[in-house]
């Protein structure tokens, strides 16, 4: 296996998925607005999907199972984005801000 056939080795994809996961977690920790945190969460979803698909391609016997699993991950991510954005808009309407620091007070 030379360097030209990197795309046939699972390690490349797995390390890439680990990088996406780490980038997403760094963004979740550092972003101070909800939309930034939402984008970082999407990166984590993508890391999970890439991981599943890689192991499905190189290890698992049934190629359709992993693809359907990833399809479900993408669908759930889309549903999550819709709900999160509507919550963000509702919060912005009440507080005139979506900075996570200013929304720290609880009621009740």
């Amino acid at each position: 296996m030379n360097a030209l056939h990197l795309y046939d080795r699972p390690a490349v994809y797995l390390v890439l998925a680990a990088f996406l996961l780490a980038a997403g977690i760094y963004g979740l920790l550092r972003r101070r607005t909800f939309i930034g945190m939402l984008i970082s969460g999407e990166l984590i979803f993508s890391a999970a999907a890439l991981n599943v698909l890689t192991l499905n391609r190189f290890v698992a016997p049934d190629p359709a199972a992993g693809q359907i699993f990833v399809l479900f991950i993408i669908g759930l991510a889309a549903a999550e984005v819709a709900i999160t954005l509507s919550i963000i808009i509702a919060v912005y309407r009440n507080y005139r801000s979506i900075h996570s620091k200013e929304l720290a007070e609880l009621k009740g």
Partner: protein
Amino acid sequence: MIPGSDLLLAGIFGVIVALTVGGALVAVLATRIIRGVCGLALCALGLAGLYYFLHSPFLALMEILIYVGAVCVTIIFGVMLTEPDEPAPAGSRGREVLWGGIALLIAAVIFGGVARLSLTARWPAAPAAPADGSIEAIGVSLLTTYSLPFELISLVLLVAILGALVIARAGRGKG
């Protein structure tokens, strides 16, 4: 096989990996959120290419359709309706650097740990003859083996849409 096609394939793969990594970095590090959304779109394009290299052209199409076409556009709507730019750091500069360093450390530890795990793990050997992951196979399994999860995910999407509408409408006054 055409001579030189190996080189071409490796070049395309390199471009796709660079697109994914660069998109993820832009998505996380950009100060303007709208650039972060563009980074997410670039990252999704790179991921679609990776899916294609993993013998799943259908998923590559879906990734572009859903992430670039739906998720990023929806987030851009959210950006237009709110003021999402990063506020100026409130604390002193030293504390900012300290917290940034801690977050970077956590991310680096996670990356190092997971990458080391996946590089040193002994995966079972690949199946002898990989079956086709064609669209026909996916469709047949969706309608036979995975028909219940398929129905459930459509229910989840329906509930999500209704819930999003209800939540976004709730605080809206008459005027």
